[in-house]
């Protein structure tokens, strides 16, 4: 792991996948089940500029059966090689993606992503949004998983309000910044304050 290699794409994966992915999933689960809570994850070291947290989420949830969309500036050869070696997810356009990764501005317009079908709302995309930082200041969140109300620095509110209005259809969002993650499922109501 520590020895220098020819190709960086071979580095930065889980060293003990079953246990590390189990711990990472519990953090993702808690983040998604309690929208707005910010949790710390570890174990992945993806190529720059991807955050540790985004790498952990990819390694934990994506594999050869989940079409992945790399949006905008994040879509670089180094990341493509890393994804190909560690995850094996087919890289696709926004419309066909089960997971989409990128900064919020690069993911626009988010109306391109799958929101599921009325009889199968689970067939929807999960967006992994890279942020500079995550804090509990910003728009207020209410809904399932939140006892009264909480706050999270969302990049905007209009898109998430529109997403909630389509419930039970909609995409789900995982925000990543450094080694922090936060979840925002489609069930959460968002209010600008």
């Amino acid at each position, binding site marked *: 792991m520590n020895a220098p290699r020819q190709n960086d794409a071979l580095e930065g994966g889980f060293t003990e996948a*079953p246990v590390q992915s189990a711990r990472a999933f519990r953090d993702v689960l808690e983040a998604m089940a309690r929208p707005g809570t910010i949790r710390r994850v570890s174990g992945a070291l993806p190529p720059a500029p991807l955050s540790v947290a985004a790498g952990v989420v990819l390694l934990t949830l994506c594999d050869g059966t989940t079409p992945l969309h790399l949006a905008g500036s994040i879509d670089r050869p180094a990341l493509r090689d890393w994804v190909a070696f560690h995850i094996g997810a087919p890289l696709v356009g926004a419309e066909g993606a089960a997971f989409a990764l990128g900064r919020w501005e690069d993911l626009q317009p988010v109306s391109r992503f799958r929101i599921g079908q009325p009889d199968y709302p*689970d067939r929807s995309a999960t967006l992994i949004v890279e942020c500079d930082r995550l804090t509990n200041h910003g728009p207020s969140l209410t809904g399932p*998983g939140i006892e009264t109300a909480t706050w999270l620095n969302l990049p905007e509110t209009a898109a998430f309000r529109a997403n909630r209005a389509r419930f039970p259809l909609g995409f789900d969002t995982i925000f990543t910044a450094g080694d922090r993650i936060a979840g925002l*499922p489609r069930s959460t109501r968002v209010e600008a304050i």
Partner: protein
Amino acid sequence: MTDQAYNFAYLDEQTKRMIRRAILKGIAVPGYQVPFASREMPMPYGWGTGGVQVMAACLVPEDRLKVIDQGADDTTNAVSIRKFFARTAGVAVTEHTTEATVIQTRHRIPETPLKPGQILVYQVPIPEPLRFLEPRETETRKMHELEEYGLMHVKLYEDIARHGQIATSYAYPVKVESRYVMDPSPIPKFDNPKLSGNPAIQLFGAGREQRIYAVPPWTEVVSLDFDDHSFHASKAPHDCDLCGSSHSYLDEVITDDQGGRMFVCSDTDFCEGRRARGMKGRLWAPEPEAAE
């Protein structure tokens, strides 16, 4: 110790990722049944294959696992699942609700209130609440899509017409966040109020029927009823004969062929905890036969 012949928590990583994705979609759409590619497990259908797969996807080595079967920690199903994960995942086990981080349950919710950070995994035989009213999956799926739940209210009404009250006493249908009607698994309706606003994450796994669904923490879960026949969380009108509790769900135990019977808490940990604190019921005595 972990049995190295198996991957951590028995299932392979690809399968666990598939289950984990289904769980997250279930969390995002509370009460909606997410299809998943259920695997064969080393136990028969009906013994909790769905719950075990959900548990395998959630377990971390630091977990402390509790398994209950109808409230009891010491029955065959509970003991074998607890041993299964102690062996394949190397997790610690406990019988105390307060000490457990993950709890797998067959048909009860523990009496002791759950806390944030705990996960309750239910074993589900038939996840579709409308299945006995409409056998076709294509139709029940359409009914969920259109939020067409009139048939369920007709069934509850027919209960009232025939019996004078809603006679459904377990697997009592609930509506989650005012959207999906959900089968809470065959828990007694006494437990239904504990589903709503629970601080723990509640996950439901149906192995044979290949469905996973979820109730996130602090989620509104309403038992279906009528304005003039409201939901009532019923239990046997007795106190526990061992610990004296008047507010726990009771099992009736036949003690002889002369009509003798006793009522005891279904939740063994709750009952033992009360007795350890010195609370006594009608029949609690060092020699049980001397008390009658």
